[in-house]
Every structure is written in structure tokens, then in C-alpha cells.
């Protein structure tokens, strides 16, 4: 099972490229994690992020890292209400070795990133045919 680490929300000071995004200068996106036996599905809220501005990687220690650059910038004008800050996103999860890191896929839609991490074939539940 995945071991999860939630980082503190810290607003962005400056980050020009996705590689520079780290827990110190980015927001931790809200995540839902689903397990459908075939795979783990991570759904992450990243409003303001455009397609192509996200990197998802799994390193040799099985750490799944998501970095995303936000395109939202503060508009001109006097602030009357301010409930959210614009910023980049960073979040990391440690996966157990029952997952296949070579087939991880991701999709970004309407400000939500979906990352699918399939289980290795040999640990997937198998259907057993019952012969009459």
C-alpha cells in the first residue's frame, strides 16, 4: 500500500521551471486516492495548471513525484477578497514495489490531474475459470 506524505502548504516565492518546484515553494494539492485492484488512481486538484505544465515521475526509490506550474497570475486592481493564492504544486508519495513504475500514466483535465499507477501483473488478482 502506498505510504503517503502530506506537505505543508507554503506559498510560492519564485519558480521558473517545473524542475525548481519543491515542497518549500509550492502548494500541496488536495488528493483523492482510489484502489480498483488493477491500479492506484491519484486525483489531484491543480486549478490554474495547463496541459503540458505537469511532470510526473517515479524514481529508483519508488517515490512518485508530481510537479506542476500554475498559469494563474494575480490580476490588476485593488484586492477586495483574497481567499486563494496563485502558485505551483508539488506532492510526493512513496509506492510499494507491488506497482509497475514503467507504466504510470497521467491526464490533466479541468484543473484536475489523474495519475494511474498499475499493479505489477504478477500481483494482480487473477480470475480463475471454473470448468464444468
Amino acid at each position, binding site marked *: 500500500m502506498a505510504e503517503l506524505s502530506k506537505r505543508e502548504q507554503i506559498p510560492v516565492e519564485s519558480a521558473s521551471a517545473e524542475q525548481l518546484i519543491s515542497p518549500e515553494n509550492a502548494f500541496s494539492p*488536495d488528493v483523492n486516492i482510489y484502489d*480498483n485492484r488493477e491500479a492506484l488512481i491519484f486525483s489531484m*486538484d491543480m486549478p490554474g495548471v*495547463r496541459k503540458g505544465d505537469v511532470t510526473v515521475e517515479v524514481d529508483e526509490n519508488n517515490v512518485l513525484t508530481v510537479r506542476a506550474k500554475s498559469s494563474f497570475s494575480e490580476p490588476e486592481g485593488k*484586492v477586495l*477578497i483574497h*481567499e486563494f493564492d496563485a502558485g505551483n504544486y508539488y506532492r510526493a508519495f512513496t509506492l510499494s514495489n507491488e506497482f509497475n513504475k514503467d507504466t504510470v500514466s497521467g491526464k490533466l483535465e479541468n484543473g484536475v490531474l489523474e495519475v494511474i499507477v498499475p499493479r505489477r501483473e504478477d500481483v494482480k488478482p487473477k480470475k480463475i475459470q471454473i470448468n464444468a
Partner: protein
Amino acid sequence: MWDLDPFKEIERMRRQMDELFSRLPFYERTSYQFPLVNLYDDKDDLLLTAEIPGLLKEDVNIQYNDGALTISGKRKAGAYGTSELLRQEQPEGNFEKRVRIPVKIRDNEIRAKFEDGILKVTLPKAEEAKPRQITIES
């Protein structure tokens, strides 16, 4: 004659506190509920931005009436067959947020855009609400 009535004194202090709070602009009282909003005053327009990830534009309802903008909709949880939810942080379900608009606006010219989970609503100010340059006569 000095008359110190402790109850009167408390009442006086309470009134002073009430007065102090009533002077705070109303827009400082916001709810921090989904969706989070910002509101900006930029000369001729007010601009409202809101973070609404995970919804299609058809599923977001925006209404202006009685000096307030209401954003409502329903955020559905992801459906991945028969899956187990291991962790839930994303807000889900019906939402409605009402934001008071502090100036008179031209309500038939409100425009809205929704991109990458961020809603932007432009509210043009009514003529009488726009800043006016005053010329000083010599």
C-alpha cells in the same frame, strides 16, 4: 457627582465594540468554503476569480441578483469502477457560494470564462460607480 454603575459601564463597552466591528468592511467576512474566491477592483470593472477544479463549464451555475453573485454546482467524486477510496481530500457534493458585490454594476454585461479549473467573472461597474477625475479650478 460621579456615578459609576458597573452595568452601565459594561453596556458602554459592548456598544463600543459593536461599533468597532460594524466599521469593518463587509467583504472581510468571507467563508473560505469551496470554491475559494478572490475579488479585485480594477477601475472600470470588478473581477472575481474562483478555483473550481473538476467541473465542466456546463456544470457551474452563476447568478447575479440583489447585489450578490452566487456560484453553485455539484462536484462529483471520481468513478473508477468498484474502487476503494483510500484517501479523500478533494471537496465533493453540492456547493453554493454567495459573494456580495460592493458597487453598482451593469448586471446585463457580466461576462464569465472558465479555464483549467479557474472561473473568471468580469463585472462592469455602473457609470456612477466608476472613479471620477476631479479637475481643480484655479
